[in-house]
């Protein structure tokens, strides 16, 4: 019996540690990272099959850069413009020091045109949300390693308040 109780306690501990570590891993850039605002490109806001997130295409999702292959890590240097939006300044294969950058992964290369993903391309919300689609930017926190986390969507520079339709579905 004692052995069984110890097993149960170990299980509870494993679950708590796994969940907390997972939360901490995701929370770290949000707690320690630097806030930046990124410009997006217009996208179709709804996926008819999934319907619970939008896929965000950033200005820095498509870059002009040399010497990259699919699967490579890429460090994208950023510079803030007068409107407070952070824009592409350059790209490097190695972690830059003393500069503002975001880390991504090259997914496709066509000549000098490089498609990059940063792990901030999906924004989740519930079904039946009413979401503005014009002039969208995103607030992102970037940790010292360049790992980014999406904080919120902004519309005209202001945080989006997502409203939900109050509907009743019947079979």
């Amino acid at each position, binding site marked *: 019996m004692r052995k*069984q109780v110890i097993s149960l306690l170990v299980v509870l501990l494993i679950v708590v540690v796994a969940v907390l570590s997972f939360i901490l891993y*995701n929370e770290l850039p949000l707690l320690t990272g630097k806030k930046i605002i990124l410009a997006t490109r217009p996208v179709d806001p709804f996926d008819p099959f999934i319907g619970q997130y939008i896929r965000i295409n950033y200005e820095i999702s498509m870059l002009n850069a040399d010497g990259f292959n699919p699967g490579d890590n890429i460090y994208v240097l950023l510079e803030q413009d007068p409107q407070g939006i952070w824009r592409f300044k350059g790209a490097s294969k190695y972690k830059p020091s003393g500069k503002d950058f975001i880390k991504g992964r090259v997914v496709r290369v066509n000549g000098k045109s490089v498609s990059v993903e940063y792990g901030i391309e*999906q924004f989740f919300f519930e079904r039946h949300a009413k979401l503005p689609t014009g002039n969208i930017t995103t607030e992102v926190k970037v940790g010292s390693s360049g790992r980014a986390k999406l904080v919120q969507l902004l519309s005209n520079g202001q945080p989006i308040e997502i409203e939900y339709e109050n509907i009743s*579905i019947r*079979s």
Partner: protein
Amino acid sequence: MFRNKRGSAFVNISATLGAILVFVGVAWLIAKNWHQIPNLLKTLILVLSTLLAFVVGFLFRVKVHEIAGRAIIALGTLLYILSVFLIAQIYHIPTGNLQDYAWLLLLCWTVILAIAYLLHSPESIIISLLLFFPWVILQYLSSIGGMQSFEKGNFLLGFILLFLSTGVLLYGISLFHNAVKHTYAVLYKFWTILYFLLIFFVLSFKGTLPFLAGFTLDNSVFSPFLMFFILVSFFAFVSSIIFVLSKDTSYSKEVLLFVILIVFLMFFVFSTKLVEGRLGRCLQTSCNDFKNIPECNSAPKDLGCTWSNSNYCDRIACYDFKSEQACKSYYSCAWVNNYCMTNYSRSDSFLKCQSYDNQKGECLKQDSCKWTPSSSFFYGGRGQLPLSLWFLWAVINLTFVLFIIVIIDYARSTGHPSIFTLALLSFVATMISSFVESPLLLPLYVCLVLYGLSLFRYIGGEEKLSGYRTYGVLYLLSFFYVLSFQIVIPYIWNRPSSFGWFGTNLGYPLILNLLIFVWLTLFTHFFLEDTKSRKGKFFTNNELIWMGLIVVVLLLIIFSSKFSALDTTGSISITTLSTFTLIIWILVNFLFIGFIILSMYYGYLIGSKDIIHLGLGIFILEIVTRYIGFWMDFKGYFAFSILAIIGGLLLILTSWLLPRTRRELIQEIQDEKTSN
């Protein structure tokens, strides 16, 4: 022979269903108001529910009821998965990214595997292995950068190597468990067999072989992940063999057969090179084949290619052209009713390329043509199938059937009904898929069906053959169950336009199914003898009359539903049903319950515990289904959540109480037998 574990299996299923229902109910209830709950509270709700489920499940096992406790622990593992995916959603982790998704699955299956061992929960290990399957696929896909290498056959080779390694790894783990006499050994063996059946299944298609033949053993197959995985599997396999043989040499024959199987499969994969380049389609190049801007811009004009905003070469969007002249300047567009639409008719280039099907060399010499390895068997039979392909196809299919027979024999000798069922199901699956692939071989498949029936004799003579009565009852009960849904009746003879691909209404397939049942029953009656319990014919005249009567009733229901076909309005709520449909629906459900009672009485008369269990199980299913149906019709999804939770708890309770009732009924049968 198999150990009689069906009673406990039934209780197990009932308890697990209960756990799943509670899980769905909680998930639905929370999801309904999800956006109003702060993220921290959402996470707390799920994590605390997970921990609570483990504690309650543990206490149930120790103090109350073993199986109900196990079901609650299984519920805990499902809640843990939900917690991980909830946290992923809160932090907007992109599930569209293969690697991110693979990490999530890894976090789930590894922790659940640990739980399975620590709490000795077989259900958790099944859940863990179920998650392991997509994880290994996603991780591999991520490591090769997606599905780009598909055309070269490397994709298929990669998957076969991946499944082979997984099978080898699981077999090694199963041997290790055998050596230490751990009860999970059979679970791992089940999954090993499943992976090998999958490999055989994939290879059994004629269309697969020419694709596979195009593999090129380069980096696009052997990603670092696959290399690592192969090494780990090989190491686990070899060390387990050494370990198990040092303890018990009786496994040597099984291990030898396993090694022969691996060698055969590898040899077979390489021998597909015999048909490389012999079969394939010669297709017109498409815009997607041009990988950069200059190539895209210089593509043949009739393709109508343009470099898209998403950074690839795409077909031009015809609807952007507002004038007839601009529209007609592209072959891919057509001017129809003052709109510029996509022209789907086949171009001259398409037809020219098509004439070089199955002629790789000539195809590649043509402008605007590309070669795609495949079997032209599907495409109107252009070109002949070479003898080498038929040979390979026959070898792999015969070996597949042989493998299934070996597995059935293994299941029989070791007493594992789950492995037996798996093997039998794959036999049915391969028959169906082969039939779909080559309908012209119908006579062969009829022979295979007869062979399949004869397997009932092979696996245990009359005792198993009598199972046919149970299958017959199950078949008719399932039929009633399908017809008992209010949404089915109006659609039996009225095909809704949304079922466009379906091609026909439900009426004909239903009738065809009944005729197959009649055919199988008569076949069993006249060609198979139940020599043990009754000399001569398999069914008594009374049984045949009752079966005939039930088939007639089912046919009457199907035909009478013709009159309810007109009231289909697209909505499937009970409030929109006509009175006539409603009457038929109520009648079907009464007849269904009547048939369930009749089946249980029949089981009682012939002394079949299986049929009694079946009747009880279907009765619970019918009640639960109707209950859910009513609530969803009248109260919406909130009520469904509550109902699912209550229903789930009831099922767990039933799994606790039912064994007692069942024991009493079976005891009665046994008492009667003894007194006779």
